[in-house]
C-alpha cells in the first residue's frame, strides 16, 4: 500500500495523547459546532471560532496575515510551535483552518486524523479546563499562497479549462437540496452545479470514524471520477469548508500540485447573474 504524499501532516490519537503537555505543541479545536469546546475538549487545547476568529468583517472574506499572526500570538504559538488542529464532523472545519493557515503562509500545522470523533470513540479524556498560554511575537513572513485559492474571476475564466470537483452531496449537486441535510436550507439563488464539474462528495475520502482513507483508496476514488491531477483542479462546495477537506486530500495526501479551493463556492456561483449552470 502506497503512503500519503505528505504523511507528516497527520498525527494519530495515540501520538496526540502522548503530547498533551508538549510545550512545543499547540492543540486548537475548530469545530462546526461552536459549543462543542465548552462541553468538553482535549486537554490543553484552545478553540478558534470558525466564523468569529477566521472570517474578516464585515465583508465576506477570511482574516489576513496580520490578523492570523495575532491569533497565533494569542495562542502562544512561536517559531518552535507545531499547531495541531482537530474538530468534529470528520475534521470538516479543522481542515478549512488548515487550508487557511497554509494559504496565509503558516506551515507548522498538522491535523489530528479522525479529529474529535476518533478521539472520543477511543474513549479518551476530555476536560472543560481552559488553558492559558502567554502571548508571543510570532509574525507570518511567508508570502500568501494565492495559488491555493480560486476567486470568482479565475473560476469564470476556467470554465471548460480546468477540472472542477463539486464536493457537495449528490442531492445538492443534482439541485434537489440547497445545503447538507443537517443544516438549514438557505443558500444560493439557484440550485445546480458548475457545468462539467465532477461530483465527488467530500466525505467519501473519510472512513466512518473520521480518519482518512488510504492513499490507494483515495487515488482510486478520485481517479475513477476523472480527477487525475494531470491538470489544474478547483474544488468547491457551498461555502468553501467541505472543499477545504477535499483540497487537503488532493494536495497534501495525494500530492497533486495544482489544486485550489474556491471558497466562494455555490453560495457565490449560484447567485451570479448570467453564468452557465447545470442540474
Amino acid at each position, binding site marked *: 500500500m502506497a503512503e500519503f504524499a505528505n504523511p507528516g501532516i497527520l498525527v494519530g490519537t495515540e501520538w496526540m495523547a502522548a503530547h498533551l503537555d508538549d510545550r512545543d505543541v499547540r492543540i486548537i479545536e475548530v469545530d462546526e459546532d461552536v459549543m462543542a469546546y465548552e462541553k468538553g475538549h482535549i486537554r490543553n487545547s484552545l478553540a478558534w471560532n470558525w466564523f468569529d476568529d477566521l472570517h474578516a468583517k464585515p465583508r465576506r472574506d477570511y482574516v489576513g496575515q496580520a490578523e492570523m499572526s495575532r491569533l497565533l500570538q494569542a495562542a502562544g504559538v512561536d517559531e518552535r510551535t507545531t499547531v495541531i488542529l482537530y474538530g*468534529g464532523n470528520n475534521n470538516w472545519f479543522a481542515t478549512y483552518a488548515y487550508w487557511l493557515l497554509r494559504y496565509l503562509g503558516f506551515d507548522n500545522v498538522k491535523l489530528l486524523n479522525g479529529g474529535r470523533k476518533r478521539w472520543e*470513540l*477511543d474513549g479518551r479524556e476530555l476536560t472543560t479546563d481552559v488553558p492559558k498560554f502567554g502571548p508571543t511575537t510570532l509574525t507570518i513572513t511567508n508570502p500568501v499562497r494565492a495559488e491555493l485559492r480560486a476567486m470568482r474571476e479565475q473560476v469564470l475564466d476556467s470554465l471548460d479549462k480546468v477540472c472542477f470537483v463539486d464536493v457537495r*452531496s*449528490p442531492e445538492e449537486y443534482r439541485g434537489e*437540496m440547497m445545503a447538507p*441535510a*443537517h443544516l438549514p436550507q438557505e443558500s444560493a439563488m439557484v440550485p445546480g452545479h458548475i457545468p462539467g464539474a465532477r461530483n465527488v462528495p467530500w466525505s*467519501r475520502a473519510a472512513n*466512518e470514524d473520521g480518519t482518512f482513507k488510504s492513499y490507494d483508496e483515495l487515488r482510486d476514488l478520485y481517479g475513477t471520477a476523472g480527477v487525475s491531477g494531470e491538470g489544474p483542479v478547483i474544488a468547491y462546495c457551498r461555502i468553501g469548508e467541505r472543499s477545504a477537506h477535499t483540497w487537503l486530500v488532493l494536495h497534501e495526501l495525494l500530492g497533486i500540485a495544482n489544486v485550489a479551493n474556491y471558497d466562494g463556492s455555490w453560495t457565490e456561483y449560484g447567485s451570479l447573474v448570467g453564468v452557465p449552470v447545470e442540474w
Partner: protein
Amino acid sequence: MPRLTGTIENGSGAFVQLRDGEGDFVGEVRADDEGRFTLYPIAGEWTVICLTPNNRREQHVDMGNEDVDIRVSA
C-alpha cells in the same frame, strides 16, 4: 422540510451520521444527553448510523414529506 427525529437507547452524546441511499455521508450531529437528535433529510431512503465507544448501530429510514420519529434500540 420534514424533520427526522430520533432517540438512541444508551446513546448519550452519540455521533449520529446521516447517509443517503448510495451510502454517502451527508451530515453528522451529536445526540443530546438523553440520546435525542434531529436531522433534515428530503424524501427518500436514508440510513442513520449511531456511533458510541465500542458500539455501532444502524437504522434505515424511508422519509416522505412528513416528520418521522425513530427509536434506535441498544
